[in-house]
């Protein structure tokens, strides 16, 4: 499954929203950009040069997908602390900020097993704050969130961009960003054409 001739630019502070019906390739494109999938043909360009070192790319981005990557035996705080330590960016204070932002502070010492669907997803999103990087790749981040959490997410994205961060997100519902570009993916065509992504 390949994207036919696809290209876009994203400046510092920029945002892009991927839109399109189910199965139009939003998730696939995001995983491609994260380096989790490799293009069948064509190349992935970053600042107009092919990505030589996928590890260096991975250090600069954070991908939050349909799966939450949460260990249910750990508490909310332990989950966040592990990822912050594992990725090695961020400091302890950020973990508390992350939990505050997404309304998880009261649940900090709660085992993640007991969380509801929306709370779990908030915990996944909280990693964006606990372990900061410039580029965020978010796959339907507002899924299962209640209105207040969606608001918190919108604010978080705005602040991130204000600090020069970049966001690419897939979404069906309300816009989570203001003034970003929108990429409509209806013409995702399953043909073997050249494909490139430029960031």
């Amino acid at each position: 499954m390949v994207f036919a001739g696809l290209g876009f630019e994203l400046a510092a502070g920029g945002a892009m929203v991927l839109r399109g019906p189910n199965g139009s390739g939003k998730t696939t494109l995001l995983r491609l950009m994260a380096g989790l999938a490799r293009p069948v043909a064509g190349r992935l360009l970053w600042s107009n040069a092919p990505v030589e070192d996928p590890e260096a790319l991975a250090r600069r981005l954070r991908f939050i997908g349909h799966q939450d990557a949460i260990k249910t035996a750990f508490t909310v705080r332990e989950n966040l602390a592990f990822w912050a330590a594992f990725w090695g960016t961020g400091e302890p204070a950020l973990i508390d900020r992350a939990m505050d932002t997404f309304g998880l502070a009261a649940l900090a010492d709660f085992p993640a097993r007991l969380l509801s669907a929306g709370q779990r997803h908030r915990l996944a999103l909280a990693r964006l704050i606990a372990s900061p990087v410039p580029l965020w790749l978010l796959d339907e981040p507002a899924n299962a969130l209640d209105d207040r959490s969606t608001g918190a997410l919108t604010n978080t994205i705005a602040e991130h961009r204000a600090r020069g961060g970049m966001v690419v997100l897939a979404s069906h519902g309300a816009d989570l960003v203001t003034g970003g570009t929108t990429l409509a993916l209806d013409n995702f065509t399953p043909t073997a054409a050249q494909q490139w992504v430029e960031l």
Partner: protein
Amino acid sequence: MSAFSALLSRDLRLALRQSADSLTVIAFFAIATVLFPFGVGPEAEVLSRIAAGVVWVAALLAALLSLDRVFVVDFEDGTLDQLILNGQSTVLVVLAKVLAHWLTTGVPLIIMSPVLAVTLQLPSEGYGVLVLALLLGTPTVSLIGALGAALVLGARRGGVLLSLLVLPLYIPVLIFGTAAIEATITGMPSQPMLSILAGLALIAAALCPFATAAALRQAAE
């Protein structure tokens, strides 16, 4: 390095959180060993003849069962994607997981093995070399097993398929592991077999982590 130690300590804490965990591997080892006298009959000379082999086979099967889930859980809940995106190298992830597996299952098996050897009436000269052989052999078991576990990620009935891929690779370990014990019992030097076991461990350590890392990246795609 911080990614390595973070992951290692996470896996160890996950294992410790259910204190019953390492215990269950030992218990499986014990039960599988104890099954043999039922199947084979209680005669002392038969048992002591097959003791070394049975302890090794039971240890391999115990390690195998616990290997089954080394990566599956992380794969299914999306953790594996995030582990691969660590900005350093997937080999690091593999090493941490293999070390955690060995510490939580290999080491308890080694500690337990002399006790089970008693119930199988292994001649007393054999205990020291049994422990030594397991010490040299179990790292290889964890390394090869992790490769098998990574290869079958996403396959249904992963457990069975895994055993299938991995068991033949265990045969050299099994052969030299039991040969070392037999040698000691019959008064021959066991040192050659033990050095081969050590050599196998080195080869496995040099080759397996890279192959495992490649298999993991493949599975995530």
